[in-house]
Protein backbone atom coordinates (compact mmCIF):
# COMPACT_ATOMS: atom_id res chain seq x y z
CA UNK A 1 0.00 0.00 0.00
CA UNK A 2 2.78 2.38 0.98
CA UNK A 3 4.51 1.63 -2.31
CA UNK A 4 1.41 2.41 -4.35
CA UNK A 5 0.82 5.67 -2.49
CA UNK A 6 4.41 6.74 -2.88
CA UNK A 7 4.38 6.00 -6.63
CA UNK A 8 1.08 7.84 -7.00
CA UNK A 9 2.59 10.86 -5.26
CA UNK A 10 5.53 10.80 -7.67
CA UNK A 11 3.15 10.71 -10.65
CA UNK A 12 1.08 13.57 -9.21
CA UNK A 13 4.20 15.67 -8.69
CA UNK A 14 5.28 15.01 -12.27
CA UNK A 15 1.82 15.96 -13.60
CA UNK A 16 1.85 19.15 -11.53
CA UNK A 17 5.30 20.26 -12.66
CA UNK A 18 4.48 19.41 -16.29
CA UNK A 19 1.26 21.45 -16.10
CA UNK A 20 3.13 24.42 -14.60
CA UNK A 21 6.04 24.26 -17.05
CA UNK A 22 3.81 23.67 -20.04
CA UNK A 23 6.80 22.84 -22.23
CA UNK A 24 7.52 20.41 -25.02
CA UNK A 25 10.61 19.40 -23.01
CA UNK A 26 8.57 18.00 -20.11
CA UNK A 27 5.55 16.05 -21.37
CA UNK A 28 2.86 15.15 -18.82
CA UNK A 29 2.27 11.55 -17.67
CA UNK A 30 -0.84 11.10 -19.80
CA UNK A 31 0.85 11.87 -23.11
CA UNK A 32 3.81 9.62 -22.17
CA UNK A 33 1.31 6.86 -21.32
CA UNK A 34 -0.42 7.37 -24.67
CA UNK A 35 2.95 7.18 -26.46
CA UNK A 36 3.78 3.92 -24.66
CA UNK A 37 0.43 2.40 -25.68
CA UNK A 38 0.84 3.52 -29.28
CA UNK A 39 4.36 2.07 -29.51
CA UNK A 40 3.22 -1.19 -27.92
CA UNK A 41 0.40 -1.44 -30.47
CA UNK A 42 2.75 -0.80 -33.40
CA UNK A 43 5.14 -3.47 -32.06
CA UNK A 44 8.04 -1.01 -32.00
CA UNK A 45 8.45 -0.88 -28.22
CA UNK A 46 8.32 -4.67 -27.61
CA UNK A 47 10.86 -5.23 -30.40
CA UNK A 48 13.38 -2.66 -29.13
CA UNK A 49 12.98 -3.83 -25.56
CA UNK A 50 13.47 -7.45 -26.59
CA UNK A 51 16.74 -6.50 -28.38
CA UNK A 52 18.03 -4.78 -25.26
CA UNK A 53 16.84 -7.49 -22.88
CA UNK A 54 18.50 -10.21 -24.97
CA UNK A 55 21.82 -8.32 -24.80
CA UNK A 56 21.44 -7.80 -21.04
CA UNK A 57 20.77 -11.50 -20.46
CA UNK A 58 23.55 -12.70 -22.77
CA UNK A 59 26.14 -10.38 -21.22
CA UNK A 60 24.90 -11.19 -17.73
CA UNK A 61 25.16 -14.96 -18.27
CA UNK A 62 28.69 -14.67 -19.63
CA UNK A 63 29.88 -12.36 -16.86
CA UNK A 64 28.13 -14.35 -14.15
CA UNK A 65 29.36 -17.81 -15.15
CA UNK A 66 32.96 -16.74 -15.80
CA UNK A 67 32.99 -14.49 -12.75
CA UNK A 68 31.73 -17.14 -10.36
CA UNK A 69 34.31 -19.67 -11.55
CA UNK A 70 37.18 -17.16 -11.40
CA UNK A 71 36.02 -15.77 -8.07
CA UNK A 72 35.76 -19.28 -6.65
CA UNK A 73 39.27 -20.14 -7.77
CA UNK A 74 40.68 -16.88 -6.37
CA UNK A 75 38.88 -17.29 -3.06
CA UNK A 76 39.89 -20.92 -2.70
CA UNK A 77 43.54 -20.88 -3.70
CA UNK A 78 45.93 -18.16 -2.54
CA UNK A 79 48.31 -18.77 -5.41
CA UNK A 80 45.61 -18.09 -8.01
CA UNK A 81 44.61 -14.98 -6.13
CA UNK A 82 48.16 -13.66 -6.01
CA UNK A 83 48.61 -13.93 -9.77
CA UNK A 84 45.13 -12.92 -10.89
CA UNK A 85 44.55 -10.05 -8.50
CA UNK A 86 46.52 -7.39 -10.49
CA UNK A 87 44.50 -8.24 -13.63
CA UNK A 88 41.35 -7.91 -11.62
CA UNK A 89 42.34 -4.47 -10.38
CA UNK A 90 43.12 -3.33 -13.94
CA UNK A 91 39.78 -4.60 -15.19
CA UNK A 92 37.94 -3.15 -12.21
CA UNK A 93 39.28 0.33 -12.91
CA UNK A 94 39.01 0.39 -16.67
CA UNK A 95 36.23 2.88 -17.55
CA UNK A 96 33.16 1.26 -19.15
CA UNK A 97 33.44 3.55 -22.15
CA UNK A 98 37.05 2.53 -22.85
CA UNK A 99 36.10 -1.15 -22.82
CA UNK A 100 33.22 -0.45 -25.20
CA UNK A 101 35.42 1.47 -27.62
CA UNK A 102 38.14 -1.22 -27.56
CA UNK A 103 35.55 -3.93 -28.20
CA UNK A 104 34.02 -2.11 -31.16
CA UNK A 105 37.40 -1.22 -32.65
CA UNK A 106 38.99 -4.65 -32.23
CA UNK A 107 36.00 -6.94 -32.72
CA UNK A 108 33.94 -4.76 -35.05
CA UNK A 109 30.54 -3.11 -34.88
CA UNK A 110 28.63 -6.29 -34.21
CA UNK A 111 26.64 -8.19 -31.61
CA UNK A 112 29.66 -10.11 -30.26
CA UNK A 113 31.51 -6.88 -29.53
CA UNK A 114 28.46 -5.43 -27.78
CA UNK A 115 28.03 -8.43 -25.52
CA UNK A 116 31.76 -8.82 -24.82
CA UNK A 117 31.97 -5.16 -23.87
CA UNK A 118 29.11 -5.37 -21.38
CA UNK A 119 30.25 -8.70 -19.96
CA UNK A 120 33.80 -7.41 -19.46
CA UNK A 121 32.42 -4.42 -17.61
CA UNK A 122 30.49 -6.60 -15.18
CA UNK A 123 32.98 -9.45 -14.81
CA UNK A 124 35.36 -7.95 -12.21
CA UNK A 125 32.45 -7.10 -9.94
CA UNK A 126 31.15 -10.65 -10.00
CA UNK A 127 34.65 -11.94 -9.28
CA UNK A 128 35.20 -9.63 -6.31
CA UNK A 129 31.91 -10.50 -4.63
CA UNK A 130 32.22 -14.24 -5.26
CA UNK A 131 35.77 -14.27 -3.94
CA UNK A 132 34.59 -12.58 -0.76
CA UNK A 133 31.86 -15.19 -0.42
CA UNK A 134 34.26 -18.07 -0.93
CA UNK A 135 36.68 -16.65 1.64
CA UNK A 136 33.90 -16.70 4.21
CA UNK A 137 32.98 -20.36 3.59
CA UNK A 138 32.74 -22.33 6.81
CA UNK A 139 35.87 -24.50 7.16
CA UNK A 140 34.18 -26.77 9.68
CA UNK A 141 31.48 -27.74 7.17
CA UNK A 142 34.23 -28.31 4.64
CA UNK A 143 35.93 -30.73 7.06
CA UNK A 144 32.60 -32.44 7.64
CA UNK A 145 31.97 -32.98 3.95
CA UNK A 146 35.50 -34.31 3.45
CA UNK A 147 35.28 -36.66 6.44
CA UNK A 148 32.06 -38.14 5.08
CA UNK A 149 33.58 -38.42 1.58
CA UNK A 150 30.84 -36.41 -0.07
CA UNK A 151 31.11 -36.36 -3.82
CA UNK A 152 32.39 -33.24 -5.49
CA UNK A 153 29.03 -32.34 -6.97
CA UNK A 154 27.18 -32.96 -3.70
CA UNK A 155 29.62 -30.67 -1.91
CA UNK A 156 29.18 -27.86 -4.41
CA UNK A 157 25.41 -28.16 -4.44
CA UNK A 158 24.63 -28.78 -0.80
CA UNK A 159 27.56 -27.30 1.12
CA UNK A 160 29.13 -24.53 -0.95
CA UNK A 161 26.33 -22.99 -3.02
CA UNK A 162 23.92 -22.45 -0.12
CA UNK A 163 26.66 -20.49 1.65
CA UNK A 164 27.37 -18.43 -1.46
CA UNK A 165 23.68 -17.81 -2.21
CA UNK A 166 23.41 -14.40 -0.51
CA UNK A 167 26.56 -13.19 -2.29
CA UNK A 168 25.37 -14.48 -5.65
CA UNK A 169 21.92 -12.96 -5.15
CA UNK A 170 23.44 -9.58 -4.31
CA UNK A 171 25.82 -9.60 -7.25
CA UNK A 172 23.19 -10.75 -9.76
CA UNK A 173 20.92 -7.93 -8.63
CA UNK A 174 23.54 -5.26 -9.05
CA UNK A 175 24.80 -6.89 -12.26
CA UNK A 176 21.39 -6.89 -13.88
CA UNK A 177 20.66 -3.28 -13.03
CA UNK A 178 24.08 -1.97 -14.02
CA UNK A 179 24.47 -4.05 -17.15
CA UNK A 180 21.25 -2.82 -18.70
CA UNK A 181 22.55 0.70 -18.24
CA UNK A 182 25.81 -0.21 -19.95
CA UNK A 183 23.89 -2.01 -22.71
CA UNK A 184 22.14 1.29 -23.50
CA UNK A 185 25.50 3.01 -23.98
CA UNK A 186 26.71 0.17 -26.19
CA UNK A 187 23.55 0.45 -28.28
CA UNK A 188 23.80 4.21 -28.46
CA UNK A 189 27.33 3.99 -29.86
CA UNK A 190 27.16 1.08 -32.23
CA UNK A 191 23.92 -0.84 -32.67
CA UNK A 192 21.04 -0.28 -35.13
CA UNK A 193 18.34 -1.29 -32.66
CA UNK A 194 17.52 -1.57 -28.95
CA UNK A 195 16.37 0.95 -26.37
CA UNK A 196 19.75 2.72 -26.40
CA UNK A 197 19.54 3.24 -30.15
CA UNK A 198 16.00 4.65 -29.87
CA UNK A 199 17.05 7.00 -27.07
CA UNK A 200 19.95 8.23 -29.20
CA UNK A 201 17.77 9.12 -32.14
CA UNK A 202 15.08 10.64 -29.89
CA UNK A 203 17.78 12.77 -28.27
CA UNK A 204 18.83 14.21 -31.59
CA UNK A 205 15.17 15.11 -32.23
CA UNK A 206 14.59 16.42 -28.69
CA UNK A 207 11.70 13.92 -28.50
CA UNK A 208 11.27 13.87 -24.71
CA UNK A 209 8.04 11.91 -24.85
CA UNK A 210 9.80 9.03 -26.56
CA UNK A 211 12.76 9.11 -24.19
CA UNK A 212 10.49 9.05 -21.15
CA UNK A 213 8.23 6.35 -22.54
CA UNK A 214 11.13 3.98 -23.30
CA UNK A 215 12.93 4.68 -20.05
CA UNK A 216 9.79 4.06 -18.01
CA UNK A 217 8.91 0.90 -19.93
CA UNK A 218 12.34 -0.59 -19.35
CA UNK A 219 12.34 0.25 -15.65
CA UNK A 220 8.92 -1.41 -15.42
CA UNK A 221 10.27 -4.50 -17.15
CA UNK A 222 13.24 -4.77 -14.77
CA UNK A 223 10.88 -4.25 -11.82
CA UNK A 224 8.77 -7.14 -13.07
CA UNK A 225 11.84 -9.39 -13.38
CA UNK A 226 12.86 -8.44 -9.85
CA UNK A 227 9.48 -9.15 -8.25
CA UNK A 228 8.46 -12.15 -10.33
CA UNK A 229 11.81 -13.90 -10.67
CA UNK A 230 14.58 -12.69 -8.35
CA UNK A 231 12.54 -12.27 -5.16
CA UNK A 232 10.71 -15.62 -5.30
CA UNK A 233 14.05 -17.32 -5.98
CA UNK A 234 15.58 -15.58 -2.99
CA UNK A 235 12.65 -16.58 -0.75
CA UNK A 236 13.14 -20.18 -1.83
CA UNK A 237 16.85 -20.29 -1.04
CA UNK A 238 16.23 -18.61 2.32
CA UNK A 239 13.36 -20.77 3.47
CA UNK A 240 15.55 -22.55 6.03
CA UNK A 241 16.20 -19.32 7.93
CA UNK A 242 13.88 -18.77 10.83
CA UNK A 243 11.48 -16.02 9.98
CA UNK A 244 11.63 -13.00 12.22
CA UNK A 245 8.67 -13.02 14.62
Amino acid at each position, binding site marked *: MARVLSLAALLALWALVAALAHSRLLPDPLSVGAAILADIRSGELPFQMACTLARVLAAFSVAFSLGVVAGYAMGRWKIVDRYADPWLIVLLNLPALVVIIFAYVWIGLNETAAIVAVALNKLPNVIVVTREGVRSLDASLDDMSRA*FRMKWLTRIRHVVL*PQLAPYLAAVSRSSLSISWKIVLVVELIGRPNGVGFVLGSAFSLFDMTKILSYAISFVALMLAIETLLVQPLERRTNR*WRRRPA
Partner: protein
Amino acid sequence: MNDEQTDGGAGPLELRIDAKTFVSADGASVEIVRGLNLRLEAGGFGAMIGPSGCGKTTILHIAAGLDADFAGQRRVPGARLGIVFQEPRLLPWRTVAENIRLVLPAHGSLDDLADLIETLGLGSHLAHYPGELSLGLARRVAIARAFAVRPDFLLLDEPFVSLDEAVAGRLREEVAVLTERHRMTTLLVTHDLRDAVQLADRLFFLSARPASIVSETSLPPPRRMRSKQAIDRILEDLSTLPLSQSAP
Protein backbone atom coordinates in the same frame (compact mmCIF):
# COMPACT_ATOMS: atom_id res chain seq x y z
CA MET B 1 55.93 -36.71 5.86
CA ASN B 2 53.50 -39.51 6.68
CA ASP B 3 52.12 -42.70 5.22
CA GLU B 4 48.50 -43.47 4.99
CA GLN B 5 46.91 -46.89 4.72
CA THR B 6 43.42 -48.23 4.94
CA ASP B 7 42.56 -51.83 5.61
CA GLY B 8 39.84 -53.35 3.52
CA GLY B 9 38.00 -55.08 6.32
CA ALA B 10 38.56 -54.94 10.01
CA GLY B 11 42.14 -54.01 10.81
CA PRO B 12 43.22 -52.27 13.96
CA LEU B 13 43.53 -48.52 14.29
CA GLU B 14 47.17 -47.53 14.45
CA LEU B 15 48.11 -43.94 14.88
CA ARG B 16 51.67 -42.80 15.34
CA ILE B 17 52.22 -39.07 15.56
CA ASP B 18 55.89 -38.28 16.03
CA ALA B 19 55.26 -34.56 15.89
CA LYS B 20 52.47 -32.14 15.07
CA THR B 21 53.03 -28.41 15.19
CA PHE B 22 50.86 -25.43 14.47
CA VAL B 23 52.02 -22.01 13.43
CA SER B 24 50.19 -19.54 15.61
CA ALA B 25 48.92 -16.15 14.44
CA ASP B 26 52.11 -14.36 15.56
CA GLY B 27 54.32 -16.75 13.59
CA ALA B 28 55.60 -18.84 16.49
CA SER B 29 55.32 -22.58 16.05
CA VAL B 30 53.55 -24.48 18.79
CA GLU B 31 54.04 -28.19 19.29
CA ILE B 32 50.68 -29.85 19.91
CA VAL B 33 51.52 -33.55 19.86
CA ARG B 34 54.83 -35.35 20.37
CA GLY B 35 55.54 -39.06 20.26
CA LEU B 36 51.99 -40.31 20.43
CA ASN B 37 51.45 -43.98 19.72
CA LEU B 38 47.96 -45.38 19.75
CA ARG B 39 46.73 -48.83 18.80
CA LEU B 40 43.15 -49.99 19.04
CA GLU B 41 42.08 -53.52 18.10
CA ALA B 42 39.41 -53.99 15.43
CA GLY B 43 35.97 -53.66 16.94
CA GLY B 44 37.33 -52.06 20.08
CA PHE B 45 36.04 -48.93 21.77
CA GLY B 46 38.85 -46.64 22.85
CA ALA B 47 38.58 -43.42 24.79
CA MET B 48 41.19 -40.67 24.86
CA ILE B 49 40.96 -38.69 28.06
CA GLY B 50 42.85 -35.50 28.64
CA PRO B 51 42.57 -31.98 29.99
CA SER B 52 40.90 -29.29 27.86
CA GLY B 53 43.19 -27.81 25.25
CA CYS B 54 45.69 -30.66 25.26
CA GLY B 55 45.25 -31.34 21.56
CA LYS B 56 42.58 -34.04 21.61
CA THR B 57 40.64 -32.57 18.71
CA THR B 58 43.84 -32.20 16.68
CA ILE B 59 44.59 -35.90 17.19
CA LEU B 60 41.05 -36.76 16.18
CA HIS B 61 41.33 -34.67 13.01
CA ILE B 62 44.53 -36.51 12.13
CA ALA B 63 42.82 -39.85 12.81
CA ALA B 64 39.95 -38.78 10.54
CA GLY B 65 42.39 -38.00 7.73
CA LEU B 66 41.39 -34.33 7.71
CA ASP B 67 44.86 -33.15 8.60
CA ALA B 68 47.73 -34.71 6.68
CA ASP B 69 50.29 -32.21 7.93
CA PHE B 70 52.02 -34.26 10.62
CA ALA B 71 55.03 -36.51 10.97
CA GLY B 72 54.02 -40.08 11.59
CA GLN B 73 51.84 -42.83 10.29
CA ARG B 74 48.13 -43.53 10.19
CA ARG B 75 46.44 -46.82 9.55
CA VAL B 76 42.67 -46.92 9.85
CA PRO B 77 40.27 -49.83 10.03
CA GLY B 78 38.23 -49.92 6.84
CA ALA B 79 37.30 -47.26 4.36
CA ARG B 80 34.08 -45.91 5.79
CA LEU B 81 34.44 -43.28 8.45
CA GLY B 82 31.68 -41.93 10.65
CA ILE B 83 32.45 -38.86 12.71
CA VAL B 84 30.63 -36.82 15.32
CA PHE B 85 32.28 -33.44 15.77
CA GLN B 86 32.22 -31.42 18.96
CA GLU B 87 29.56 -29.17 17.46
CA PRO B 88 26.83 -30.90 15.46
CA ARG B 89 28.04 -29.42 12.11
CA LEU B 90 24.78 -29.95 10.30
CA LEU B 91 23.93 -28.11 7.11
CA PRO B 92 21.49 -25.46 8.35
CA TRP B 93 19.86 -25.11 4.90
CA ARG B 94 18.96 -28.78 4.65
CA THR B 95 16.35 -30.67 6.67
CA VAL B 96 17.29 -33.34 9.17
CA ALA B 97 16.37 -36.05 6.65
CA GLU B 98 18.50 -34.45 3.92
CA ASN B 99 21.42 -33.96 6.31
CA ILE B 100 21.47 -37.70 6.91
CA ARG B 101 20.73 -38.70 3.32
CA LEU B 102 23.56 -36.57 1.89
CA VAL B 103 26.28 -38.70 3.50
CA LEU B 104 24.82 -42.00 2.32
CA PRO B 105 26.34 -43.86 -0.59
CA ALA B 106 24.61 -43.33 -3.94
CA HIS B 107 22.12 -46.17 -3.59
CA GLY B 108 21.39 -45.63 0.12
CA SER B 109 17.98 -44.61 1.33
CA LEU B 110 16.57 -43.33 4.59
CA ASP B 111 14.10 -46.22 4.64
CA ASP B 112 16.90 -48.61 5.58
CA LEU B 113 17.68 -46.43 8.58
CA ALA B 114 14.31 -46.60 10.29
CA ASP B 115 15.86 -48.50 13.22
CA LEU B 116 18.59 -45.94 13.76
CA ILE B 117 16.18 -43.02 13.51
CA GLU B 118 13.84 -44.79 15.92
CA THR B 119 16.62 -45.49 18.45
CA LEU B 120 17.68 -41.85 18.44
CA GLY B 121 14.09 -40.59 18.61
CA LEU B 122 14.32 -38.49 15.46
CA GLY B 123 11.22 -39.80 13.71
CA SER B 124 9.12 -36.69 14.25
CA HIS B 125 11.94 -34.28 13.38
CA LEU B 126 12.98 -35.44 9.93
CA ALA B 127 11.31 -32.52 8.15
CA HIS B 128 12.78 -29.88 10.48
CA TYR B 129 15.71 -27.61 9.73
CA PRO B 130 18.64 -27.74 12.21
CA GLY B 131 17.89 -24.19 13.37
CA GLU B 132 14.61 -25.45 14.76
CA LEU B 133 16.26 -28.10 16.96
CA SER B 134 17.64 -27.96 20.49
CA LEU B 135 21.33 -28.72 20.93
CA GLY B 136 20.50 -32.17 22.26
CA LEU B 137 18.43 -32.98 19.20
CA ALA B 138 21.04 -31.57 16.82
CA ARG B 139 23.64 -33.82 18.50
CA ARG B 140 21.37 -36.78 17.91
CA VAL B 141 21.13 -35.92 14.24
CA ALA B 142 24.93 -35.71 14.09
CA ILE B 143 25.16 -39.13 15.76
CA ALA B 144 22.54 -40.55 13.39
CA ARG B 145 24.51 -39.18 10.44
CA ALA B 146 27.71 -40.85 11.65
CA PHE B 147 26.02 -44.22 12.12
CA ALA B 148 24.06 -43.88 8.87
CA VAL B 149 27.17 -44.51 6.76
CA ARG B 150 27.59 -47.88 8.56
CA PRO B 151 31.12 -46.96 9.47
CA ASP B 152 34.00 -49.36 9.93
CA PHE B 153 35.62 -46.65 11.97
CA LEU B 154 33.79 -44.19 14.22
CA LEU B 155 35.20 -41.04 15.78
CA LEU B 156 33.38 -39.17 18.53
CA ASP B 157 34.63 -35.76 19.66
CA GLU B 158 33.10 -34.86 23.04
CA PRO B 159 29.64 -35.76 21.76
CA PHE B 160 27.92 -35.20 25.12
CA VAL B 161 29.50 -31.91 26.19
CA SER B 162 27.18 -29.04 27.23
CA LEU B 163 24.13 -31.23 27.48
CA ASP B 164 22.29 -31.58 30.75
CA GLU B 165 23.04 -34.81 32.63
CA ALA B 166 19.71 -36.51 31.87
CA VAL B 167 20.02 -35.94 28.12
CA ALA B 168 23.72 -36.83 28.08
CA GLY B 169 23.02 -40.03 30.01
CA ARG B 170 20.34 -41.14 27.59
CA LEU B 171 22.50 -40.30 24.60
CA ARG B 172 25.42 -42.28 26.08
CA GLU B 173 23.17 -45.30 26.37
CA GLU B 174 21.99 -44.92 22.80
CA VAL B 175 25.56 -44.70 21.54
CA ALA B 176 26.46 -47.78 23.58
CA VAL B 177 23.58 -49.70 22.03
CA LEU B 178 24.48 -48.60 18.51
CA THR B 179 28.22 -49.32 18.70
CA GLU B 180 27.44 -52.75 20.11
CA ARG B 181 24.86 -53.55 17.45
CA HIS B 182 27.07 -52.61 14.49
CA ARG B 183 30.55 -53.85 15.18
CA MET B 184 32.93 -51.01 14.52
CA THR B 185 36.17 -49.61 15.83
CA THR B 186 35.39 -46.52 17.83
CA LEU B 187 37.56 -43.78 19.24
CA LEU B 188 36.00 -41.35 21.69
CA VAL B 189 37.66 -38.13 22.77
CA THR B 190 36.53 -36.69 26.06
CA HIS B 191 37.60 -34.79 29.15
CA ASP B 192 34.99 -36.62 31.20
CA LEU B 193 36.19 -39.87 32.72
CA ARG B 194 32.60 -40.97 33.33
CA ASP B 195 31.83 -40.80 29.58
CA ALA B 196 34.86 -42.90 28.89
CA VAL B 197 34.22 -45.50 31.57
CA GLN B 198 30.61 -45.99 30.61
CA LEU B 199 31.37 -46.61 26.96
CA ALA B 200 34.92 -47.75 26.35
CA ASP B 201 36.91 -50.92 26.83
CA ARG B 202 40.27 -49.24 26.51
CA LEU B 203 41.33 -45.92 28.01
CA PHE B 204 44.19 -43.71 26.85
CA PHE B 205 45.25 -40.94 29.19
CA LEU B 206 46.86 -37.94 27.53
CA SER B 207 49.40 -35.55 28.96
CA ALA B 208 49.16 -31.79 28.68
CA ARG B 209 50.70 -30.12 25.59
CA PRO B 210 52.56 -31.44 23.68
CA ALA B 211 50.20 -34.38 24.02
CA SER B 212 51.31 -37.97 24.27
CA ILE B 213 49.81 -41.05 25.91
CA VAL B 214 50.97 -41.27 29.50
CA SER B 215 49.11 -44.44 30.38
CA GLU B 216 46.57 -46.82 28.97
CA THR B 217 44.38 -49.37 30.60
CA SER B 218 41.80 -51.95 29.59
CA LEU B 219 38.40 -52.26 31.20
CA PRO B 220 36.76 -55.65 31.62
CA PRO B 221 33.84 -56.47 29.33
CA PRO B 222 30.94 -56.16 29.00
CA ARG B 223 31.02 -52.48 28.27
CA ARG B 224 27.42 -52.11 27.24
CA MET B 225 24.91 -51.25 29.94
CA ARG B 226 27.64 -51.00 32.51
CA SER B 227 25.67 -50.26 35.66
CA LYS B 228 26.14 -47.18 37.78
CA GLN B 229 27.71 -49.28 40.54
CA ALA B 230 30.14 -50.84 38.08
CA ILE B 231 31.10 -47.41 36.75
CA ASP B 232 31.63 -46.07 40.26
CA ARG B 233 33.78 -49.07 41.12
CA ILE B 234 35.94 -48.59 38.02
CA LEU B 235 36.28 -44.88 38.73
CA GLU B 236 37.35 -45.75 42.27
CA ASP B 237 40.02 -48.11 40.96
CA LEU B 238 41.25 -45.59 38.45
CA SER B 239 41.61 -42.86 41.04
CA THR B 240 44.40 -44.89 42.64
CA LEU B 241 46.36 -44.58 39.40
CA PRO B 242 48.46 -41.46 39.79
CA LEU B 243 48.43 -40.64 36.09
CA SER B 244 44.70 -40.38 35.72
CA GLN B 245 44.61 -37.48 38.17
CA SER B 246 44.91 -35.06 35.31
CA ALA B 247 41.47 -36.05 34.10
CA PRO B 248 38.62 -34.52 36.08
